[in-house]
């Protein structure tokens, strides 16, 4: 069976076991990248360097010592045991989906896959879920894969979303440099979003923002006049879609463009997805970011 079939969000939606889902996706994805330059990225031997006091003696290459009578330690690429944490937006707007997969589901698949994938890199994994406040927080740990996956599995949409306050709490709680993956639909003003993410970035974290939207949020294909209800606030307004479709699209594009530019300036990796795209797009984006983060000195 072609592994890419599992990467289709509609297919993944049929797999209830999130652990199995993550294994299926990630293993299939890696198998498919067998000849990729990223294979074995994190555990490949890089070089030797002279032993310095304080180095872990477990890294001493005793065979070199036997031949040369000098102490050298092995240095591996990405053999960093980095902290990997998912920041998952649970706001009610994430519950929206015009097709078979909601943004929340898509985010869950993505979070599960990334967590599993990171754990395969021997990273410590954790997760923070939030809406207008932190809902769940699983600290990063090498043993927390199951807990993280379990947390992801029972994720349900919360209330109104607010990105600044929960991310501020996250920033305050992080004491070690981490790789942070923010999964959200980012329905906030760009300034607010940037304030929140800049705090994380400024603390030395590597932040990757996965901006997830439904295709209907981008194209606004509605025809019939109807009241539109805000999923988070419950507010309703009458809308004649065809009269403001163009304006809506322009505003949305402007919002996306602004976010992309502002995050680029802040050296934040910004990835935009709609839920119709296969999961491996997101994995690929993540890997390409991770490659740049992989060399640990």
């Amino acid at each position, binding site marked *: 069976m072609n592994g890419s079939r599992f990467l289709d969000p509609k297919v993944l939606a049929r797999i209830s076991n999130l652990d199995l889902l993550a294994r299926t996706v990630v293993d299939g994805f890696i198998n498919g990248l067998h000849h990729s330059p990223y294979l074995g990225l994190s555990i490949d031997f890089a070089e030797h360097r002279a032993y310095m006091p304080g180095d872990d003696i477990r890294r001493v290459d005793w065979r070199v010592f036997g031949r040369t009578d000098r102490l050298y330690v092995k240095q591996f690429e990405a053999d960093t045991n980095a902290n990997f944490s998912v920041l998952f937006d649970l706001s009610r707007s994430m519950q929206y989906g015009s097709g078979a997969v909601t*943004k929340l589901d898509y985010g869950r698949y993505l979070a599960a896959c990334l967590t599993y994938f990171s754990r395969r890199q021997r990273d410590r994994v954790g997760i923070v879920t939030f809406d207008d406040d932190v809902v769940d927080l699983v600290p990063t740990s090498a043993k927390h894969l199951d807990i993280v996956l379990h947390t992801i599995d029972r994720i349900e949409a919360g209330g109104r979303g607010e990105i600044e306050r929960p991310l501020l709490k996250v920033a305050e709680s992080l004491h070690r440099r981490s790789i942070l993956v923010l999964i959200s639909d980012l329905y906030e003003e760009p300034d607010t979003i940037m304030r929140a993410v800049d705090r994380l970035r400024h603390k030395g974290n590597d932040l990757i923002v996965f901006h997830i939207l439904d295709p209907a949020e981008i194209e606004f294909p*509605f025809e019939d006049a109807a009241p*539109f209800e805000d999923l988070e606030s419950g507010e309703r307004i*009458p809308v*004649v879609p*065809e009269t*403001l479709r163009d304006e809506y699209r322009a505003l949305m594009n402007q919002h996306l463009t602004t976010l992309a530019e502002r995050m680029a300036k802040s050296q934040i990796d910004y990835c935009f997805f709609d839920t119709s795209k296969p999961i491996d797009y997101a994995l690929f984006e993540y890997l390409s970011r991770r490659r740049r983060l992989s060399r640990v000195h």
Partner: protein
Amino acid sequence: MSVTFLAPLFLAGLAAIAIPIMIHLTHRERRDAIPFPSLMFLRRVPYRTVRRQRIRHWLLFLLRAAAVILAVVAFARPLLDRASLGPVILGSAREVVILIDRSYSMGYDDRWSRALNAARRTIDGLGRDDRATVVFFADLAEAVNQPSADQAALHALIDRAQLGAGRTRYAPAVQLARDILEVSDLPRREAVLITDFQKIGWDGQQDLRLPEGTVLTRIDLSDAEPTNIAVTDILLDRTEPSGRGRATVSARVVNAGATPVSDLSVALEIDGQDVQTRTIELSPEASVMVRFAPVAVPERVMRGRVRVASDPLPQDDAFHFTLAPLRAVPLLIVRHPSARAREALYLRRALGIGRDPPFEVEVKRVDQLQPADLDDRAIVILNDAPYPTGASGQRLLRFVRDGGGLLVVLGQRSGAGTWPAAATDLFIARPGVMIDRLGGRGGTVSILDYSHPIFEPFSAPRSGDFSAARFFRYRRYESPPSASILARFDDGAVALAEARAGMGRVMVWTTDLANRWNDLPVQPVFLPFVHEVARYLADYREAPAWYTVGQALDLTDNPAARPWGPPSSLPRTDRSPELVVETPSGTRFVKALGESSSHVELRELGFYTIRPLAEDAEAARVVAVNPDVTESDLTRLDPEELALAVEPRESGSDRATALAAALTPAEKERRQGLWWYLLMAVVLILLAEAAVAGRLSGTTR
């Protein structure tokens, strides 16, 4: 070309076009709210009527509008007025009726073979879509097939065709052709008339015309100067009755040609043998009566034939007849015992000189009457005699009921007391008192029923004057309502009454026939009157010596088979329900007699023999059949004259237009069936609409 509608009121349904317009102008407003992640990019937009009146989805709208329009037009039953388009649209298929004359004049020389060849050429000329009907006609027309395009079958019909023996009549053929062509739905019509155009076939009186647009094609098979000798008639002159009779045969021979004929041999043939021959000269268009010497007539039916030498038309060269012995009608006069012989003198003498038929008269006294005396009698006349008593009276009653005739002549001795009660069954009522008109000039017969067979011969002027006879005495006779009064005296008293008793006939004459109470016996009308009464009471009908082809022979009515006389060798149809009929050509068939099948149409020339199935040929009834002599006249009719009479008034070149114009709008609409195509288009459009709507619906959710 224009488009009209059979049901234009349905076009009002075009108003339904407003439905898709309304649908497409009106934005459906959903009542349930559409959940949306965030309204931060949506702004409140008020409903703006102007903007809502813009048609959305033009393709869908056009499909729906087209479906509505086409459906409405289909229900309005559109039709194209195709008359202006002519035969291009109407097509070229023909309905052809091939009328083939098979009267016996077509047997002249090689006309028949030429007629069949012409029919075959016509069939070969039929197109693939053409249909043809073969009609053979003479005095009647008969279509031998349904309209067919199968040329092989049509050829087979022609191959099986046989010349007939009838005379030519064009009216039935034209009528049948018209009936066939009128109901045809093919755009072109044609009647092909293959005949010798005999003048006797068309009297110009019939108002017959072929349907409009029909082309009449005439194939003339007549000859320029035909010659024809025909035996058209014979006269049989019987001289003596009762087995010792002789008959003189006279034949009329006609030269219908334009050239004189000399040394023409005319032969009389009896039972297949030439018995006499005459040689005659014949001028052009003249006739000669050829008289043969008397021939003896034996006690059986002879087959006679007068023939001339064969000519190009052999069917009328011989004339067939039967020669049967004359049978005298046996008649018994019963007189009063006291009556003198001369009282029946006038009656006996009158009956004694009868020749057509002869009467065999016997006189008996009523008191000497024996039951056996009534055997084999046709008529009994009670001439002023009382009703017989005893067994004779019973026998007389049975005699009448079995079909015998009884004439009761009232007179001096036939008062009411002379009639027993048992006899009232026959006499209807008893004779009344005598009326004496001796005081004046006597009475007269003033009212006669000239419609009755007895008095019908006297109905013409100067054919018999009953008013000359004076009646001085007669008896009162009160006839019941069931009796028919045939004659009355001037005072209203009954002179002659008739009643039925069983199968027989009873007549009462209320005065004598002895020249005492009246002077009728010495009047000129007496002889024919007595003969007519006797013929009527005996139900005497002379068997025809010949029939004409085309006549229907009633097998149940054989005039030669009479209930009286010696046992007849002639077939009695009441004895056998099945008869064997042998035609002149030798074909035999059994005819089961019934109410609906008691007739045989005489189609062939010559002698038919008819006999009961169980009896031998000796008991056969022989019927001679001759052609209709008018057919012997080969005078030609101008084909143009016939064509002008029967061709449609509209020319054939406009027949397509005529056909189209002749069609009613309903017929045009039915032929074109445009509604069907329109509804099919509606179905296809609706399918396309469903597909488009489904796609659009999928993109808008």
